[in-house]
Structure formats: structure tokens, C-alpha cells
């Protein structure tokens, strides 16, 4: 049933030209240079250290690796990370 609604959403996104992140609640990452990364539509912070940020997102985890991380802003919908970003990786459950 859940799968079916996900399919419907995907179809709707394609048909209506509305971006997927809006329709399906997918995470949207914006990387400015290497120094600022904003992630919208995340679910929660799993772990944070100077070199690593682990976030829970819809169907999976997002691992970001780098140096000198600072969580500049943290809101319910958006998180802004400052520091040198080396690696952005999706990990399935």
C-alpha cells in the first residue's frame, strides 16, 4: 500500500512538473563550494562529530564526511553544515 502511494507521488511529480522533493518529501542538498552544505527535508541527526555527520532521511541514511564541521543552523526541516566537505554518501538501511 505504501509502495503504491509512493508510485503515485512519483507519477504526479513527473506529470505536474513540481519538484520531487516537494511532492515526495525527499531530501534536497545544496552544496556551496566545499564549505557550506544545506540539507532540507532530513528526518533527524543520528551522529555528529568534527569529521562526520550522519542524518536519517526518507528510506536511508546520509553520511557526510569532511573536516572541521560546525552545525551552523539546525531546524526541523533544514540543517546547515559548515566545514570542509569531502564525501557525501547514501547508505541503505
Amino acid at each position: 500500500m505504501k509502495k503504491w502511494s509512493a508510485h503515485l507521488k512519483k507519477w504526479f511529480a513527473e506529470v505536474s512538473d513540481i519538484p520531487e522533493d516537494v511532492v515526495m518529501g525527499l531530501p534536497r542538498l545544496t552544496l556551496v563550494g566545499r564549505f557550506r552544505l544545506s540539507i532540507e527535508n532530513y528526518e533527524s541527526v543520528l551522529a555528529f562529530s568534527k569529521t562526520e555527520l550522519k542524518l536519517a532521511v526518507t528510506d536511508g541514511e546520509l553520511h557526510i564526511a569532511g573536516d572541521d564541521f560546525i552545525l551552523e543552523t539546525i531546524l526541523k526541516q533544514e540543517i546547515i553544515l559548515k566545514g570542509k566537505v569531502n564525501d557525501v554518501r547514501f547508505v541503505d538501511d
Partner: protein
Amino acid sequence: MKHVVQHAKGYLKTEILGDDPEKFIRYCVREHIRIWNIVRKNETTLICFIELKNSQTLKEWLKETNCRMRILEKSGIPFFLKKLTRRLGIAAGILFFLFILLLLSNMVWSVRVQGADAQLEEQIRSILKQHHLYEGALDLLIPDAGQLENELSTRLTKVTWIGVSKEGTTYKISVVQKKYPKPKSVSGPRNLVAAKQAVVQRLFVETGQPAVESDQFVKAGQVLVSGMVGDEKSSRFVSAKGTIIGETWYHSDMQIPLKSRYTLYPGQDAHKYRLMVGNVSLPLWGTKKKPFKRYDREELRKPIRFLFWRTPFVYVQENFRKKQVVERRLTARQAMAEAMESSEKKLLDSLPKGSKIISSTIDYKKVVRDSLYIRTHQVVNENIAVPKPINVKKETGKQNSKKQ
């Protein structure tokens, strides 16, 4: 700039200690507590800024997440205020300083008078002082510049034009003084001639040869006292001097309304003081809505300044002057008496000093549509002599030609 709001609310810089400090962060995010600039210090410690909230709820969450909190810094206005209350003296001092600064910003620092001589300047300053304008006065109590101009120009007779302007904390009064031309005195050889048609009454001649007699009718310009003395053979010129009293006649036409309306100010005033911020008005003193039945209203607006800036506050003073409308009715006889009196007064004002009205008579009177039309004539005794210089060369030439 981003955290201005936080600054107003107050915030803490804290260390979150615990096995899983992220859990606490998650809690805060879920409960919409603002949290920012999070840095990992070590395995068990996060450093972050957190918005100031009820400490009791924070404690509960810390307990639930098995974390401890250490406060590193307290910033923001609430903490600043707390500090201030602890140092009440300083707070009072700062307030007092601001108050003094406000007071000094709205003070008159100098009054400059330009274009007046020392005596007139003194006079101007004393008039200004009566209207609360002097060095060190509060600007709020001073009337409008236009009002001051009016007052000064009605009280000072020696002044052609007077301008009052305000530049910052300085009042500038520019004056143009009247300059009378020096009366030309004819002191050389001169005759005295008649200024107007008259019948000569008395002659008081100091020097010169009288050319007319008492009860003689003279025309304007006729020689009364000649400046040429001596007989035809040996004559010399003097400066004729004397007073010739002549009888002259004047008539005047007047119209006096029998019914007239006057507006009187019985001298009762009421004041209202307000403080305006934008369009919002804050009554300070005097809140009665309409102090009098009939009144004239004046409004005085004084923007309050602070150092170089105009604050949005405006001090407004409203003056209400009680007004009475009085109707006056005159009988024909009263109107006549008034007409006579005023016409005599008007006449005497226009005549030289020492003139006397011998008699006044009414020639004609009529009441038309509530107005009295009256024609009067006056008989006056006045000095009719005016000096006229003699052209000596011409006169001697004439005489010489006569001799030949």
C-alpha cells in the same frame, strides 16, 4: 545579524555532556528550541549555542536524554539587564546622562541679534526674555518664530523689519533698523512763509521783518516774516525766526455704524499639553475637551531633538483663548459724540504740536440703514509758519536792478 532575535531573547553558550548528546539536540529540534553553531569537542561533549528557555523544561529534557549541561557564557539583553539591576548605580547614571543630554539638546545655547545697535539689542533681549527666550531656556516653552516676530515688530517702533530664525540650538534675530534722514534745518538767510491758507491771529517774531498783520488772510506760500531787514538802500539778510498762529479750517466726513459686533478676549486662557509620536497623541496635562464655549485655538509644535537627530516625539502645546462676541448699539446722539471725538483726535494727530481746536460744528448728519453719516468742520489755531531759504544772489541782483 542573523541572531539579533536571539540577542533580544537571550541565549547561552553551553557544553552538552553525555553518552549521546545528539539525542538532546534532536529533542530541542523537535520542540522548536533554536540551537546553533554546534561543534564536537570530544566523544562525549558538544558545544552549542542555545536559546534561553524555561530552565525547568530544559532540566527535564536533560534528564530524559541522560545529558548534563554546563553553561559557558550567558549573553543577550535579559542577562545584560540582570547585570544592570545588580549595578543600579550605573544604570541610574546612564539614564541620568541620557536625560541631561536630552535636556541640553533642547536648550537654547545662544541668541544672536544682528543689525541692531546696543540699546535696541538690549530692548529686544528684554522682550525675548518675557517670552522665555534667553540663553539656557528650554526650547519647548518658546513660542513660534512667527509669533515672536509679530510681538517684536509691534513692540519696537524703531525697526523696519525683524526676522526670527532658528538654527539648531541658536536663535538668530535679524533686524533692519529704521534710519531717519536728519531734518534739514534751514539756518541761512530765510523767510517764513505760510504753510496753508489761514487767517493770521497772532505773530511772535524773534528775528526778521513781519510782512503780515493780525486778522489778515494769507494764502499758502505767502511770505509771513521776511528775512530781509533794513530799508531799500542798505539791506541785509537774516534767518527769520518766529511763530505765526493762524486760524485754519478743516472738514471731515465720517460714517459710524449704530450696530456693531465686537470680538472680545476677556483674558481667560486654558492650555493643553500633549506628546505626539507619529499620529499617536499622549495627553500630558489638561484633558478637558472644550474649555470654553467660544475660543481661539493656537497650536505650538516643538519637535524634540536628541543631539543631531530629531526624535519622532513632538511636544504640542495648545492654547485656548476665551472669546466673547459683543453687540453694541448706539443712539444717534452717542454716535454723534463719538464721531466728533474721533474726528478731532484724528485731526490733532495730523497737525503740528501745539495746535488747538477752537470749535467744531456739525454741518450735516443723516442716519441711513443703521449708519450715521456726519460731516463736521473744525476751526483750529496752529503755527502756519514754515522756513523757506532765500536765494541771496538773486535777491541782491533784483535790488541792484531796481536801484539802477
